[in-house]
């Protein structure tokens, strides 16, 4: 996310605080997909994820005047979304990481062994990423897909920056172990 876009987001938030519906539409259009994917990964159910995203942006509409600008708007959105997703999962334990739904989302490639047989290293890597724990997958997604800095990941997850680095390192190490078990030795760690 460029600095220019971040600044523009802050302007939109200011206009939303004044009740500007168009600014809300712009902010929503800009961020809805990424925030949806982040929440979907957490709750594993598209319908639940959509309801939660609606709540996230409705909160933004109601509370835009509370945005202090200490972090990027996208980071603020992900932090709200994560809080809502975890609260939802606590309210409805039966929906907690619905494995069946998660499998539906993720089961788009062969097992790692099959993928290796096909000499498709990318597919094996995808399968192993999906096999990571939710905690490890979350930090991987925030760094690689959502392009969040160490400080931003710390803010979103609510852990110290040093823990973010450690968690990322262990997530990657686990990924290498899974790949090795699937027959791909990356020579690291």
């Amino acid at each position: 996310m460029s600095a220019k876009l971040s600044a523009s987001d802050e302007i939109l938030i200011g206009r939303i605080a004044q009740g500007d519906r168009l600014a809300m539409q712009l902010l929503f259009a800009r961020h809805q997909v990424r925030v949806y994917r982040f929440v979907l990964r957490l709750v594993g159910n598209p319908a639940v994820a959509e309801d939660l995203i609606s709540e996230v942006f409705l909160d933004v509409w109601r509370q835009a005047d509370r945005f202090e600008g200490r972090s990027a708007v996208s980071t603020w959105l992900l932090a709200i979304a994560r809080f809502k997703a975890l609260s939802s999962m606590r309210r409805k334990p039966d929906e907690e990481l619905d494995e069946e739904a998660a499998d539906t989302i993720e089961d788009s490639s062969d097992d790692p062994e099959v993928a290796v047989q096909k000499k498709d290293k990318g597919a094996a890597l995808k399968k192993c990423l999906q096999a990571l724990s939710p905690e490890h997958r979350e930090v991987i997604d925030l760094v690689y897909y959502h392009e969040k800095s160490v400080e931003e990941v710390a803010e979103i997850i609510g852990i110290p920056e040093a823990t973010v680095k450690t968690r990322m390192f262990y997530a990657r190490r686990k990924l290498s172990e899974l790949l090795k078990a699937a027959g791909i030795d990356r020579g690291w760690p």
Partner: protein
Amino acid sequence: MNEMKRRLSADDIEALLPWYAAGTLGAWEAGQVEAALAANAELGRRLDLVREEMTEAIVLNEALGVPSARMAENLFSAIDRERRTARDPAARSGVAGWFADLFTPRVLAFAAGAAVLLIAVEAGVIARLALQEHVPQGGGYVIQSIPTDAHTTRRPDPGAFVRVSFSPQASMADVTSFLNARGATIVEGPTAGLYRVRIGRNYVAKEELDRLVGEFQSDGDIVASVTPD
């Protein structure tokens, strides 16, 4: 500053590779990683591993699809409901809600701003009246208020006027900007929530007045209601 003085260890550098690959490191840390990469071929190979992971993580996330149009519809329906409720006190639940609306910070700020405008207008009128004392009788003057009864000796106001209620969502700056853009000024109010606004200095034909009213009505974010005066 302490961070600037120390060099990162090899382990620190390696831990930062994912953020270096994503381009989310600060300049100083990125410089440290680049220096280490230049001196260590093995670190370069590990950076390639990070890039492979990143590529597949992005592909996986992109494969999650996009939310349905239902999500946007639900959200903006809820927002529009809130806007209507904020605008229309009757839509709120009972008298308590109506009073609560009266004392929201935004409404109070607007009322204070309107009071300042009125004081300024009145000051102008007083100053003008004072000047009029030196004008020969028959020169006449115009007062910016409504005649109090049918027997008034004052001349009717020149110009065109409307009665306007502003949206509670509209800020003082919004209203001022809106009025300035149309050469309009608040001359009285609020009375029962309505302000008397001059929208033209001279008499305007009914068709033109209707057009101006329509123009006011078209901006629902600022104007809640408008009627010819």
